[in-house]
């Protein structure tokens, strides 16, 4: 009797404690979804007076048919019209954080960065330097480290204001394009790693709006690579050469290569998969060199050359052509980045540091002088695995 009374007394105390803990901690960080301004993507530009201009694309949850009143709630899960689902707000400040605070003043809802999946740096800002801005993206708990980063030709604000033809909005469109790996694909974390590495050079995908007809509705697309040195943009590389960069960065998983084999006048297209690139550094005396070893498998997908891929000798010619083509692409990327821009966007520095830590320590300081002198030998080993069979 006594024991049970004491036990129920203890239970009461425990219940009180639990109850008070709920009351004390409260729900200070509770946020209903309909009190959030969901940032889908953000564009960062340099304004004319050298301030930071932040343009955020915000999801508009209100539906097109909301005038119908109460019935509107029912069709919530079905996606409405793709248009007018987002709106772009712009605020200017000394830093992103400052601009974001000012942005908050413009909005009735709390800015929520957790679903911002795209950050676009305007060309002017990229030339001015992006290191400080990246600090906000890393340090603030809101933005995702997995968000993709781009540099735009022209103003980032214009990119954010564009609609996407197929996706809900342009942020989603850019994200999907980055994921499909037709160009480079860099997220905040990788950008930070590049900025911190000894290479002193960064590569970001370049977004552009259709130049020929700026008024056209076509969505922005990835059109090459922006090359940055120490956070400052130094040049652009076109789509074709970008493929070479991707090869060197070992980020090509699949690709289609079209070329003319030696001694024929028709094209051959091959689909490459299981591509793998190894960078093997070596130091002989003062001569630093890197051997780029590429291995890949090719499936023939179109053959206009008249060569018979089932005949070993002719198949060999196709295979050699493939290897030459891949090497060419890499060579052109090297020519642009290594010789013209002197930007180590391929991670050569890391390779040397890992294999030759002692020598690296000595060269580290003047790597930008050493880098253009590094000799690169490309050896490509693409094998034609599946020639296909079309009857002849």
């Amino acid at each position, binding site marked *: 009797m006594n024991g049970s009374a004491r036990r*129920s007394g203890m*239970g009461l105390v425990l219940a009180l404690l639990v109850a008070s803990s*709920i009351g004390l*901690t*409260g*729900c200070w*960080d*509770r*946020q*209903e*979804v*309909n009190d*959030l301004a*969901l940032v*889908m993507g953000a564009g960062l530009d340099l304004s004319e007076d050298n301030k930071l201009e932040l343009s955020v694309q915000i*999801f508009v*949850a*209100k*539906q097109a048919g*909301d005038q119908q009143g*109460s*019935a*509107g*709630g*029912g069709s*919530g*899960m079905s*996606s*409405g019209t793709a248009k007018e689902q987002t709106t772009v707000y712009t605020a200017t400040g000394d830093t992103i954080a400052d601009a974001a605070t000012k942005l908050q003043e413009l909005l009735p809802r709390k800015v*929520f960065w*957790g*679903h911002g*999946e795209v950050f676009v740096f305007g060309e002017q800002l990229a030339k001015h330097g992006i290191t400080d801005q990246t600090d906000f993206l890393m340090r603030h708990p809101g933005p*995702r480290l997995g968000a993709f980063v781009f540099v735009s030709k022209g103003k980032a604000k214009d990119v954010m204001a564009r609609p996407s033809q197929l996706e*809900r909005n342009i942020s*989603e469109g850019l994200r999907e394009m980055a994921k499909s790996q037709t160009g480079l694909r860099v997220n905040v974390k990788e950008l930070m790693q590049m900025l911190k590495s000894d290479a002193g050079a960064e590569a970001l995908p370049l977004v552009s709006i259709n130049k020929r007809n700026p008024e056209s509705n076509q969505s922005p697309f990835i059109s090459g690579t922006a090359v940055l040195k120490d956070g400052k943009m130094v040049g652009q590389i076109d789509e074709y050469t970008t493929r070479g960069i991707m090869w060197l960065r070992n980020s090509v998983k699949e690709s289609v290569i079209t070329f003319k084999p030696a001694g024929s006048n028709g094209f051959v297209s091959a689909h490459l998969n299981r591509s793998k690139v190894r960078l093997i550094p070596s130091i002989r005396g003062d001569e630093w060199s890197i051997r780029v070893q590429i291995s890949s498998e090719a499936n023939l997908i179109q053959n206009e050359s008249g060569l018979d891929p089932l005949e070993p000798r002719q198949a060999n010619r196709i295979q050699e052509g493939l290897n030459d083509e891949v090497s060419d692409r890499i060579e052109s990327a090297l020519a642009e980045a290594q010789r013209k821009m002197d930007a180590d966007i391929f991670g050569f520095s890391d390779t040397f540091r890992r294999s030759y830590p002692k020598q690296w320590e000595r060269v580290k300081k003047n790597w930008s002088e050493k880098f253009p002198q590094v000799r690169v030998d490309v050896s490509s080993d693409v094998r034609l695995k599946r020639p296909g069979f079309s009857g002849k």
Partner: protein
Amino acid sequence: MRRSENNDQAASKLGSRLDDNLTQLRSLYQDCFDVVFHEFRYGKSVRAALVYIAGLSNIDEINRMILQSAGKTEPPEKGSGIDAYRPIVPVSSTHPVSTPNDVVKEVSDGNPVLLVDGETGGLAVALASWDQRSVQEPEAEAVVRGPREGFIETLQVNTAMLRRKLKTPSLKMRTMTIGKFSQTQVVIAYLDGVADPGLLSEMEQRLKRIQIDGILETGYIQEMIEDNPMSPFPLLQTTERPDIAAAHLLEGRIVLLVEGTPLTLIAPVSFFSFLQSAEDYYQSFYFGTAIRWLRYLFTLIALIGPSLYVAIITFHQEMIPTTLLLSMAKSRELIPFPALVEALLMEVTFEALREAGVRLPKQVGAAVSIVGALVIGQAAISAGLVSSPMVMVVAVTGIASFMIPHYTMGIAIRIIRFPMMLLAGFLGFYGLILGTLFLLTHLFSLRSFGVPYMAPVATTEKTGLKDVLVRAPLWNMRIRPHFTGRWNKYRQQPGSSYQVRRRGGPK
């Protein structure tokens, strides 16, 4: 005053004068119109009386076996004792009673008591018979494959059903009477040589400690003898299926059968046996295993489904895939309530609908389900009170709570869902984790008749996991569960499983 007087009379002995005895009994049964005192004569001279309760005894048999023959039979000599009447009464079972107390007991059980003038004591005649429900399929524990019979309200029928499952003298059934007024008969069934003798004496002790006026259902006993009376979780299992009762007996557990209810109690039990159905063992073990996993998953959903939704949508929006969040945001746009209120509103409505559906007569039940579908379905959404994802969550949770095969556990889980929702609504995942930890700590501290409630999880009994994580093939489960069956370890001959697998059965 009156009561003690009655007691004194009941304690005394029956005399040899019929009138005295009748007066005594009549005063006991004062104002009981259903008790019949029928006076008649044996032969020409010997006065006799039959005391019985209308509706509890077989009137036809009384007329035929006792009254019709009484006039024609020559009675034994006066003073030859009541036993001398036993051959005269052509009924298979008769036994003498000597006190008014005994008379009351027999009469209450439906056995008419014969009192003869000049003979001490009376003779109880086993002619009890009353209207009882026929054996039917247990509705609360339906199976597709398996026996269709269920226990009924009559104890003798139930014990007989159990005896038919286990035809061995090792099946022991001790009996007890509990309840001052209800005088409810309780049978403790166990398998001698399998069940733990200590468990048996513990059970008897706990039952003896019950001092209550009446036992109307096994629930009364369950609440009285549970190890932790404050726990929301059932620490004893109920079943109305003889096959489940027999299965538990075979694993060394005790089954309590109680007069007047089709539900029997099983002790000790583990948490996981509430998530198992008889059919798990009757169907293929692949199916049994898959169904169990499904049940575990949905038990979890029934417990924390709405809480998870509330926590994510109000605290952790970054955890939802973007496209899904956008759809949710759209449907939540016009909802006036916070997600927690929305969830509580819907869950309470759902529980109310369910309860209304259970209590209402079957004819009205259909109306409830139609209105219910409207209330927690389309109407609520188009009225702008709740969002469509919330309706989904509530519906899935509702289905999940019906996935738990044992009703008592289902209730417990449904009740706990509400504090979990509050915790999630106030503290987000932090609260959810807090609640879950509290719950787990509680679960692991529980005992059912001394056996860990969560056994075999987190105990040293590894083989028991074969019946929890999966439903192992029967030929593989050779050992009884450790905590209840270690007094008779093997339920299959050692090595027999090997023979089953290799040669299609023991030689």
